[in-house]
């Protein structure tokens, strides 16, 4: 069975860097890449509503296109998470996909620019039982 890299993306520059690193790794290791984008849902009295817009989906699609262009087996997978549960959802997705490695940017779209490590990446390091590759944006 081909080994799998789970690449977690939002639409940030950090994700672009993580995508670049995943591409480099997958080219050399012949791993396949599943690009996972998580929709955050706010759940309230009248049902649930998506918090994020479609830019993340478009970005995930563009990453897959780039990976396929480089001859890498790649596809998008989108998951829904309740607000604040993105890291948990990614951890579950990694188990479902039996991913060998989870790749994330060090920080996502959080507007706390001073944070060295975003909350999703940080939580994922605690939650995942699988190797997590944290890619800094520099």
């Amino acid at each position: 069975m081909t080994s799998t890299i789970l690449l977690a993306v939002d639409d940030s520059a950090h994700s672009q860097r993580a995508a670049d690193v995943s591409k480099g790794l997958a080219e050399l290791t012949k791993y396949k890449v599943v690009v996972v984008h998580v929709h955050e849902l706010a759940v309230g009295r009248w049902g649930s509503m998506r918090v994020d817009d479609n830019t993340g989906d478009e970005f995930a699609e563009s990453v897959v296109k780039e990976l396929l262009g480089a001859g890498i087996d790649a596809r998008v997978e989108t998951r829904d998470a309740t607000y604040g549960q993105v890291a948990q959802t990614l951890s579950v997705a990694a188990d479902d996909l039996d991913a060998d490695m989870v790749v994330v940017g060090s920080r996502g779209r959080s507007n706390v620019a001073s944070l060295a490590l975003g909350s999703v990446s940080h939580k994922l390091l605690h939650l995942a039982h699988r190797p997590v590759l944290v890619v800094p944006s520099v």
Partner: protein
Amino acid sequence: MRAVYEGAVGPYCYLESARKLELEGLAMTDQSDVAAKRIVVGVDGSAQSIAALRWAARIASATGCGIDAVIAWEYPAAYGWVMAPEGWPLEDDSAATLQRTLDQAFGQHRPADLLAVCRHGSARTLLLEASKGAEMLVVGSRGHGGFAGLLLGSVSAACAEHAHCPVLVVHRESSPNSEESGS
């Protein structure tokens, strides 16, 4: 395979010291087979660091990188005082731990381009320094800290936050077996 044991506190300059050793005719082999691209692995003798070494070897073999297995040692200090019996061979102990961990990780099949580095300093400072110019830094999720229930150790957390290169945090269960690491 060559080993560089330098006790000095200072910037991470093992390659320079390796070259110095070679110039002095002390290095075990010549430098021609040392890849420029390096994967740095933090080693402390824990099960996680064995997993980290195996993962590093797996990625290094795929990407053509060399491996720097780094162990750091410090005098145990409390309230600014170092209390250590004279002649306590901390450095030798660390070097032995490093070799033992390498044996546990690879047995007879150590990667050819592997540099064992034993240095005085704090693990986080040395590893963060080593991450400059490295292709990847690989660390176990937690090492020898006293709090066994902790999911992410302080050194791993510091590396993930502040390293200059991608950081792979490896958990014990996720160790690829030795057959896989060779492929």
